[in-house]
C-alpha cells in the first residue's frame, strides 16, 4: 500500500455543525460550529469563522476563531490575532499574537511535568 498523506484527518467545514462529544485519533480542522466536547489525538486547527462551544483537548492547537470552554493542550498552543478564548487554558508552550483575547486562567506546565486531568 502506498502511503496517503491525508489519511485519517477530520475536517469540519463551514456550513456544518457537530453536536455531541467528538473524538478523533488524528488531526482535526474546524471551520464550522461545534456544540460538545472535542478531543483530538493529533493537532487541532480552529479557523477564523469557527465557533466551538465546548471543552477542547489536543496535542497542539492553532486557534484563529472562538472557543468557549476549557482548553487542554499537551504541547503548544498558538492564538492568532483575531482569536477568542473564553475559558481556562493549560499548555506547555504558548504563543499569543497581539489582538488575541483570553478570558480565563492560564496554567503552564514545564516540559518534564505531566499536566493534571
Amino acid at each position, binding site marked *: 500500500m502506498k502511503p496517503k498523506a491525508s489519511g485519517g484527518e477530520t475536517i469540519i*467545514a463551514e*456550513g456544518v455543525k457537530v*453536536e455531541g462529544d467528538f473524538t*478523533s485519533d488524528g488531526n482535526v480542522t474546524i471551520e464550522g460550529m461545534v456544540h460538545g466536547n472535542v478531543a483530538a489525538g493529533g493537532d487541532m486547527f480552529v479557523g477564523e469563522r469557527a465557533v466551538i462551544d465546548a471543552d477542547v483537548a489536543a496535542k497542539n492547537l492553532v486557534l484563529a476563531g472562538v472557543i468557549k470552554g476549557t482548553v487542554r493542550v499537551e504541547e503548544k498552543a498558538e492564538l492568532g490575532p483575531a482569536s477568542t478564548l473564553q475559558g481556562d487554558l493549560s499548555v506547555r508552550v504558548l504563543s499569543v499574537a497581539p489582538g488575541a483575547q483570553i478570558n480565563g486562567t492560564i496554567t503552564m506546565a514545564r516540559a518534564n511535568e505531566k499536566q493534571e486531568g
Partner: protein
Amino acid sequence: MYCYLYDTFTQDGKNERELTAIEHSITDLGLQGKIVRLALFRDPAEAIRREVAAGVKTVVVVGHDRTVAQVLDVAVETGVVLALLPVGSPNVLARIFGVPEGVASCDVLSQRIIETLDVGVVNGKRFLSGLRVERGQPRVRSQRGYSVLAAREAPIEVRNLSTVPPSTPDDLSNPTDGCLDVIIHTHTRKGLRRVEHQTCVPLDRATIEYDAPVEAMVDGEPMEAATFEINVLPKALKVIVGRERMI
C-alpha cells in the same frame, strides 16, 4: 487455479480481437483456467461459488466496473482473490488498481501483487468505491455519540475509494484504514463568489438520515431510502493490483 468470468457484453464481435490477444497471452504466461461466460439469466455468484468449491483460488473478471460490482458480494463471502482484465467502460477500478488495458493486463495478473481492501456496506449492500447523494439535507449520526449536520441541502459522499474518476492518488480515500470517509459538500458566498467547502469525517459505522427518501448512487447503481446505515468490513477483499496502482 484461475476462473475467468466473461461479462455478457464481451461476447460481442467488437471485442473478439482484443479477447483473442488476451487469451493467447494468458496461455503464454501459463495462467490458463476455466472460462465462465455470463448470460442474461446466469447468476454470477452461483457460478463463482461452484468454481470456488471446485478449488478455484482466483476469479478474473473480464469486463468493467459493473462486472466487478456484480461479483463483489460473492468474492467477499468466499474469500477468493479477485483480478480484473479490463474490457469496455467504465473501467475506473482498473485504473485505480494499476491494471492497463489490453494484453498488458495479463502481466499484472502474472505478477500477482495482492492488496487486501476494506469494503463498505450500505443498508446491507456491499460497495467498493462509494456512494453519493446529490439532494437533501443530511444528518450523519456516528455510533461514537456525535452528529454531523449540514445547515442546508448538501451533497454527501461516503468513500471507500472514490465516487468519481480520480485524477491523482490524492483524490482517493484510503481503502485499507478500516474507515469510510464521509464527505459533505457545502458552500458559502463571498460577494458574488461561491466558495466551496468540504467536510471530511472518517467513520467505521454511522447512519445518514433525511426527512424524505432520496436517491443514492452506490457503485454506479441507484438506491432509494430516507435512512442509510453504513459500516465498513475491514480487509474484506483481496485484489490483484499492478505496480502503477493509485492506492
